């Protein structure tokens, strides 16, 4: 048997990707990236803390309180090369969408920068 314990100990921590998903895509084992709250008529009905790992019970609670989406941290198993490629493709598509825009105009530039940052997260 190969002893890989040293290799495991030296491995960098798993990267995560934060993103919003509809509740219909939520699964047990996913980690909340931000506190999930459900407020109805100004009353806090449900609050699950950031870092909470979804289980059968919390998924039921979210459904029962009609949460529509959650913010999760998804393990990012992509290689550095793939991360760079994905970022490049996202930037390329964004440049295509904004190809007719004047990116020196402050509002357009602000929107472009925020969407690019959102896509790069």
């Amino acid at each position, binding site marked *: 048997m190969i002893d890989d314990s040293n290799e495991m100990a030296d491995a960098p921590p798993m990267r995560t990707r934060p993103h*919003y998903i*509809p509740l219909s895509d939520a699964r047990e084992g996913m980690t909340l990236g931000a506190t999930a709250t459900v407020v109805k008529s100004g009353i806090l009905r449900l609050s699950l803390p950031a870092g909470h790992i979804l289980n059968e019970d919390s998924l039921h609670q979210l459904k*029962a309180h009609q949460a529509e989406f959650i913010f999760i941290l998804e393990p990012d198993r992509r290689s550095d090369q793939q991360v760079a490629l994905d970022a490049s493709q996202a930037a390329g598509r964004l440049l295509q*969408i904004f190809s007719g*825009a004047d990116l020196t*105009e402050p509002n357009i530039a602000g929107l472009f920068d925020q969407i690019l940052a959102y896509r790069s997260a």
Partner: protein
Amino acid sequence: MAALTITRENAAEISGKLASFPHFVTEILRTLDDPDANLKILVEHIQRDPVISARVLSRANAAGSRTRGSAAIQNIYTATSLIGMRNVREMTVISSLASFVDSIAPPGLPVTFWQHNVAAGVCSVEMALHMTAPVSIDAALIAGLLHDIGQLWLYRMDPAGCHAAWAEANTSNSGIDIVEREHFGVDHATIGGWLAEHWSLPANITAAIAHHHAPDEALHEPLVPLVYIAEVLSNALDLTGRDENRVTTLSAPACKALGLVWNAELRPLFGRMEARSRHANAMFQ
């Protein structure tokens, strides 16, 4: 160039021959300030429509499965109290307008047409929830869902001309409204406004549809910049991934009217728009 000279009168006349605008939607809008009457209209409509009944009951049963054990919810009033009137109204309005659009959609209309309108409707709702502007969430949803209805009308009249206009807008980086005015003498936003007026939709919804490419002329109506920015964001976020998603201009007065500052605090809003748009489009596929 289209053979037909498009006017307010013939837009309404041709539209009237296609299908009636859903009475349910105008009644829902009319009774927003009367919750009892609004609920009655909503429930009666749902009970007449087996597809939307099934959707509402299915969602209510999913929500109630933990607390009610195996007792299935079969009553629309119970379902509405469980999942909330706003959620049920949103599902029903989207479903009703989807059926209407489907009934008048000409063959060959890209499927992304309605998906984009749903995305803009969802973005408009999220903008209304995010902003402090005094805008009804239901009006925001309906204006977003119908903002491109003039494009559907144009496609019915001249599908080849529409494809040519879309292609030209993509390659020339001109706004689609500018290209349409060159091709047809009028743009889809103006036609949409005429149709909304013909259907007796409220003035704020009519204005939001008519000015969704030129908001600066009607900034006194908060729904106008809101729907305009919602559509810009649905394109910028590439919701539905359609080829026509383009951002060529962004009205500084519209941003100012909504108090929008483009900073990192908006990213959760982008996330909610993306997640809810995907969810809504999946529900009505």
